[in-house]
């Protein structure tokens, strides 16, 4: 474990975020908007998650 290169950590982190980005879309929109009368597109929290994941991918790419 001691010889593992540091660069791997960034690749693994980015991989985790990409995997999470795929998993997010398994959650049905109706579950996110349950009980809501307003169903505007901006209320879809999967899109919020994508913005967050995009930011994280950028961060780990810059600081690699």
């Amino acid at each position, binding site marked *: *474990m*001691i*010889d*593992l290169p*540091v660069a*791997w*950590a*960034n690749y*693994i*982190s980015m991989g*985790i*975020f990409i995997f*999470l980005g795929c998993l*997010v879309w398994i*959650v*049905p929109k*109706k*579950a*996110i*908007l*349950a*009980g*809501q009368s307003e169903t505007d597109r901006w*209320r879809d*929290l*999967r899109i*919020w*998650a994508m*913005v*967050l*994941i995009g*930011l*994280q991918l950028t*961060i*780990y790419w810059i*600081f*690699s």
Partner: protein
Amino acid sequence: MHPLDLAIIIGYLALITFVGIKLGSKVKNAHDFFLAGRSLTWWVIGLSIIGTNIDTNSYVGASGNAYNVGIAQANFEWIGAIPAMIIASLIFIPLYWRAGVYSIPEYLGLRYNQGVRVVAALIASIFAVFALGVAMWALALTLETYLGWPIWVGILVSGTVVGLYSIAGGLAAVAITDSIQVSIMFLCGIIIVGIGISDAGGFSAFATTLTQDNPTHLQAYLPADDEGFPWPGVILGLGFVLSPAYWIGSQAILQRTLGARTQWDASASMMFAALAKTFIPLLVVFPGILALVMKADIDYPDMALPWVIKNVLPPGISGLMFVAIIAALQSSIDSGVNSTSLMITRDIRHVLMKNHDTANDLKVGRYLTLVLLLSSMCIAPFIGDLGGIFTFLQTILSLFQGPMLALLLLGAMTQRATPMAGLWTLVSGVLVSALLLIVLEWNLLYVAFVSFCYSMVALWTVSGFTEKLSAEKLATLTYRPWSRT
């Protein structure tokens, strides 16, 4: 201290007290006191979550660590938080909110049994009393450092201000004052970054100066053989276990989401908090790096932030930054007393006294909030002597993280986990953690990961031989979005 700085500090304390007491008139029962009558909106909760999450360790300690290790310190805000916050937002928070519970131990009690509920509440409450004492001591120390107030005056003033608004207004006052406090923190963070980058001659000059003497300070991870934060340990222990255990299991954090006016507000609040969390390193990591770039003359790393406040910020802004540090501490104390009061009132008192009558919960909750504050004020002056006990309690708490995460994960995501398997896994999982940490002296990050893996296997296996909850109960206590119409 400049008179303008002093005026800003006094104005802030008066504003927070006024807002909190004003909200107190709306509190009619325990539901209002502990869950704000389920009236909170997503952005207030989101800011409040961040306020609760940032404490003195985040500000002073993280800046000091960043001075030593650079941007790697920010992993606590990124890989060590964001994935878990997204999962909490989309899966766990909707589940808790729909179950109508007041606390995470209450959810565990419904999903497993009352033994698990009491153990979870008891451990969290005992730890919270000492954590509150540490926070109160840190607040008094900060006031002594900047204003020259004796420690006992700082404790008295801090306890009185926090007590006035948290006893009167409950969760609503805590959440709204938190959101004001976090807004101040971010304002100060942006100003420090702006002034710091400008003084260093722009971002490129800043980065060049930093990496000349500290080539690894702009790398996100430390080597695998680093003693404190080896990168495999950070990803496996922090990213996969400690962070999810905190973001899906911490009562102080999640209580405000249970007070959301709708399920969507509850979920959106955590997503919004995650967005804010992404930029927290600007507040808590950047000052440490800035002190390094500006070649600060300091004796030890934890002096990095005070040095930046004193030497970089102009009068008025330094007062505001000082307010931000007080705010960070206050928001952790107010959330701690409110959530601990809730767990003792409902999860421990109701179960152990076998009395589920909620008529006296408001009165008991307010008394307990006062008692907790007074306890923390009494403990605070002796916290240096009690440091060993606090470290011991932190260790005990960490033993529960892996097993508790397994219980929440399998309990929420599957219908397989059974009440008896839950209790058995909790007990045996803690023993496994203790063996690895105390006897074999493993790094805490690896202990968390291995005890979590053990608990997942144990819970899954033992559940195959023990009795399940009824299908009707499981339907409301497990995440099954595809089966709902």
